[in-house]
């Protein structure tokens, strides 16, 4: 188990280091995630070294958000004043993001598969 913690925190540390070095506005954890994925692909890190702990963390991700959510109690005043725009804008926009992302993905995918079909035919 120690190696699992060691590897994950090493990648987080590399992310923090890069953010510190470059001042880039991307969180260290996202950089760590991308680098971990790349290192697994390149065989620098073996899947067995990280699989157990990462499985546990990924499956319980929601729990780690609880304290941030409790921070809500510090802005109850603003929420009471403006709950209508906050709730409606958030809910409708979430709807829009899901629909737009899914539609564009399906559209581009079917378009590109038709295109490659056409090229395949012309090649014949």
């Amino acid at each position, binding site marked *: 188990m120690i190696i699992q913690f060691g590897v994950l925190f090493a990648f987080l540390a590399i992310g923090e280091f890069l953010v510190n070095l470059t001042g880039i*506005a991307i969180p260290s954890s996202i950089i760590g*995630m991308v680098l971990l994925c790349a290192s*697994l692909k390149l065989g620098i890190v073996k899947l067995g070294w990280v699989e157990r702990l990462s499985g546990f963390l990924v499956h319980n991700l929601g729990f780690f958000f*609880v304290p941030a959510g409790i921070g809500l*109690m510090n802005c109850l005043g603003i929420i009471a004043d403006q709950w209508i725009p906050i709730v409606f804008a958030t809910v409708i926009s979430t709807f829009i993001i899901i629909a*737009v992302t899914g539609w564009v993905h399906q559209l581009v995918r079917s378009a590109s598969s038709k295109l490659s079909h056409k090229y395949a035919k012309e090649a014949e």
Partner: protein
Amino acid sequence: MDFLQNKFFLIALTFGFYLGAQLLQKRTGIKLLNPILIAIAAMIAFLLMCDIDYDTYKKGGEYIDFWLKPAVVALGVPLYKQLSSIKRQILPLLLSELAGCVAGIVSVVLLAELFGATREVVISLAPKAVTTPIAMEISNAMGGIAPLTAAVVVATGIFGGMTGFKIVKMSHIHSPIAGGLSIGTAAHAVGTSAAMERSERFGAFSSIGLTLNGLFTALLAPMILGLLGYSM
């Protein structure tokens, strides 16, 4: 009564509320008994009743918060497992993420304006689809209220995680890849953990959604906000 402010007690209580809600949700099958939602609500009620402020809670809560970063790093593993299917459709992924990112920021800003939100609140809502560290960073830099952003981000995640699959179905999105992707784009890591419960494949594409939208939002949100009249 000082014991109620003990950080280990507050951590234990957070676990307790979460576990209790998890059990209740399993027993009753009621979706609304979302453990994240219930743990937050019960904990706020408890803190208000006992007159404990958030800073005191945070002395314990920050030890839970702490695991958020390693947990995001851990998402690299499901991502790796799906690399080959990602490579096969890099163009659809990038285009749909770009569209989702822009549509998300523009829609929440215009809707919030329409419903009469103040400038600070509009900016606080703009990055609501992406994971807390990115969202709070943007909110802070652009003149929003970072704690409000954090709360809205978590609420968005819970909402997206609970209703995401219904919205996917209603929008006639049939491919599981597009479905997973759009839930991660709209509802970040909380939505991703809901997608992960469906299947690892759903979850992996959801984590691509959260990653790409996180990157695009970090890069584009200041510019989009500027174009909409909210420059720094």
